[in-house]
């Protein structure tokens, strides 16, 4: 019987071998899938077992998101947002099943699972301490951010404000209105969070959307800066004093209609570039666009970063001047209408590019990552995104935009003792509907420290309410807040 016993022993060996192989498969190859399955509540519990890193601003002096030890063994660490609404879209929220904003984009650092933190995590594991994440310090200027939110919210309209440091690309302000309180969305209770989320999601005002980077709007006259940039770049002899045609009515080829200036105003048949921009004539820029052609307009737009996807590290919806739809459409595109759609961040980048002698810096929100032990793990180095125009062209554009604030439609953005350059915009949305109000600006002209774009949705009531009246005062406050320090 020993022969058969030995074969049975081999059968037992095979059975144990199969069990071990299968357990190994489950514990290694399949483990990740099983661990992250949405029906596995452990993933949910694990979210609250980590002492998440904080989110700060102003070089760590202001706390935007903090972790509180509740002592509850199941849901030990709770997340709180002391400054709430003004920062909600940037900071995001840490919900039971997902996370948004910086909470989502930098989650690997915040929860300590980033490879750079692996040694620290291993130490925690061995010593039995809860895992601790790294803190993320943002570039935001909290004073300017809060002021921008207050100003924009007080208009009662939807909108967004973005302010950049033109020399680095650091985002100083990013506000979207209406906003929401992130605290109820960060509770460790799926039912409560879902209820709060659904209420916000169903809201007609769509408060969850980050209008600064995730929605695009017709930029209106602010886009004339890009058209001017293309015009100057096309021929080195052109400058702010170059005289261009400014007819009262510009016939659009292939159609029976003609393009007029705002409310049928006259720009005198001919005007210099600086005059045309200062009072925001439509026909000269429409004609410039048509004369340059779609490809040159598109090329100039791309040099400002338009059309390229961007991660700041929040994902930015690409802006777009629209497809080539013929001369008549191009005329409208050149004055920021038609299919021309920009995010407020993109228009801030246009202003910042002009301010920074033609070089657009890559916008970023994260200033630095600070490890659980207080040591700096990473900091963002400013990076050039593109060369939009030459310094000479930038200087001409600056000259024109300075004139806009001094003598034109943007006087509301003047700052005492500081030279401001800017451009208003009023974008028609649909016949009979209120227009969007825009304002882009930077200051001080001699040594730019802040570039800003303000967008107020349906902000212009009926007639001549231009971006200068609604949007420029907000830009004024934000620039003052940034420069005042």
């Amino acid at each position, binding site marked *: 019987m020993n022969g058969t016993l*030995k074969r*049975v022993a081999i059968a037992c060996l095979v059975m144990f071998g199969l069990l071990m192989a299968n357990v190994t498969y489950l514990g290694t190859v399949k483990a*990740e899938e*099983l661990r992250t399955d949405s029906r596995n509540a452990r993933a949910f519990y694990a979210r609250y077992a980590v002492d998440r890193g904080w989110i700060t601003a102003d070089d760590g002096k202001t706390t935007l998101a903090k972790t509180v030890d509740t002592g509850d063994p199941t849901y030990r660490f709770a997340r709180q947002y002391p400054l709430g609404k003004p920062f909600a879209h940037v900071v995001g929220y840490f919900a039971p099943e997902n996370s948004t904003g910086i909470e989502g984009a930098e989650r690997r650092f915040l929860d300590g699972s980033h490879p750079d933190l692996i040694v620290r995590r291993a130490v925690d594991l061995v010593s039995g301490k809860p895992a601790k994440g790294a803190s993320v310090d943002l570039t935001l200027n909290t004073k300017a951010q809060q002021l921008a939110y207050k100003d924009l919210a007080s208009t009662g309209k939807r909108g967004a404000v973005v302010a950049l440091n033109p020399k680095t690309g650091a985002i100083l302000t990013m506000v979207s209105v209406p906003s929401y309180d992130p605290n109820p969305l960060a509770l460790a209770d799926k039912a409560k969070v879902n209820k709060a989320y659904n209420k916000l999601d169903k809201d007609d005002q769509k408060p969850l959307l980050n209008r600064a980077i995730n929605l695009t709007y017709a930029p209106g006259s602010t886009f004339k800066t890009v058209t001017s940039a293309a015009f100057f770049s096309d021929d080195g002899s052109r400058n702010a004093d170059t005289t261009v045609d400014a007819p009262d009515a510009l016939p659009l080829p292939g159609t029976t209609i003609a393009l007029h200036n705002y409310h049928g105003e006259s720009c005198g048949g001919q005007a210099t570039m600086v005059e045309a921009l200062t009072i925001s004539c439509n026909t000269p820029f429409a004609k410039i666009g048509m004369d340059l052609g779609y490809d040159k307009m598109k090329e100039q737009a791309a040099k400002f970063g338009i059309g390229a996807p961007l991660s700041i590290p929040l994902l930015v919806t690409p802006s777009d001047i629209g497809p080539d739809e013929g001369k008549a459409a191009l005329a409208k595109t050149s004055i920021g209408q038609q299919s021309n759609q920009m995010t407020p961040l993109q228009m801030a980048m246009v202003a910042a590019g002009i301010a920074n002698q033609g070089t657009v810096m890559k916008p970023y929100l994260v200033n630095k990552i600070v490890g659980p032990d207080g040591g700096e793990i990473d900091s963002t180095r400013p990076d050039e995104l593109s060369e939009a125009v030459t310094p000479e062209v930038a200087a001409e554009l600056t000259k024109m935009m300075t004139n806009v604030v001094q003598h034109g439609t943007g006087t509301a953005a003047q700052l005492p003792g500081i030279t401001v350059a800017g451009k208003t915009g009023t974008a028609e949305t649909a016949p009979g509907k209120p227009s969007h109000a825009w304002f882009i600006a930077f200051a001080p002209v001699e040594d730019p420290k802040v570039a800003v774009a303000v967008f107020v949705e349906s902000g212009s009531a009926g007639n001549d309410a231009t971006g200068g009246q609604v949007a420029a005062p907000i830009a004024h406050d934000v620039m003052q807040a940034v420069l005042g320090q």
Partner: protein
Amino acid sequence: MSAVDGEPVPMTAKRRGAQLAMLAFAVLIVMAAYASVGLGIDKKIPSGMLTYGLGLGGLMLAAYLVLAKFAPWADPLLLPLVTLVNGLGLVMIYRIEQTGQAGASATNQLMWTALGVVMFSATLIVLKDHRALQRLTYTAGFVGVGLLVLPLLPFIGKEINGARIWIGIGGFTIQPAEFAKLALVVFFAGYLVAKRDVLALAGRRLLFIDLPRARDLGPVLITWAVSLGVLVMQKDLGSSLLLFGAFIAMLYIATQRTSWVLIGVLLFVGGAILAGQVFSHVHDRFEVFLDPQDPALYDRPFGGSYQLLQGLFGIGSGGILGTGLGQGHPKLIPLSFSDFIFAATGEELGLTGLMALLMVYALIVQRGLRTALAARDPFSKLLAGGLAFILAWQLFIIVGGVTRLIPLTGLVTPFMSAGGSALLANWMLIALLVRMSDAARRPPPQAIQDEGLTQVMQR
């Protein structure tokens, strides 16, 4: 066939000191695991650690003393290995009890462990020579079948969780199939030793296998029918698979005929497929096995994949090193203290812990099979081989089911799962193996030198 196959086993040392040291080591590991649970939960050494640890240590010392007195030549590894898995099972149940899962009670399990050790000792003391069991072949058969049928009787039979495999006596519920398992292995061994020559007779040769004679198929068919009967009447897939597999394995050991194995496997697969089409609960198990992640199956209130998937989540979340004792979420796995204790252990001890655990079980089985190889008479060989195999087979069925290697059929994980009947029966199983290993390792009486040619061969 000669009484002693192959070379005689040269080992004659008792190795009792080594056994005691290993026993102490096993108890030490268990106590460390207790401490680890407490540290994991609330950073404190649990107050019950000494009670449980010393309780277990005392019990095992008693078992050791009985063994040393009544089976001094027994295999030195069996008792420490069983102590280790039994102890780790206690720790896991204690840990699950801390989460508040209903039904988990470490105190009860410790009490049953104590009773198990009593049964172990009693078996060793009463059964001086296991060959006495051979005389009880048919008695064992009747007792086995009787125990199997018991839960079907009115009044004492109880249906729990959809399976009618329990009887209630006084305040206790007993799972008689666990004891039936032992009785039937004894019966199979006795019956097959008596009939193996007949069964091994060749019938006709078909293709490359020798088919047995038609009338010899009788016992196989009867066992098959009983297994299917258990499956159908009690909805107990696990026990049915366990008994039939053990019978086929023992039939093969006894007759050396592969054809029996093939016929047995075909019969069982045929029966299982038929059952899968006729009975919804069998069908459900197959469905769940094929795709446990299907949301429709997951959400099905009865016969769904919720439990299996939660167990798999536990093992997957444990990963390679596990969360550490006291730091997982075994409460999420239904019945984590009984059928699914392996998954709960996987979560907290990880792949590493499960491998170690499987290795300990494999060693127990190996010691059993080694006893079978060393045994000196066919009955002992068959009984030891059968008992060792049924242990391995039971582990394969339940662990394979929980880890989705095979369809899930409910069985307890030997020595680990909460449950008194299984613990008692398995301690008796180990006692039988210990008794047989003692006989196998005991040096044979020396032949009388002067008897010359008339010497009587030791048999």
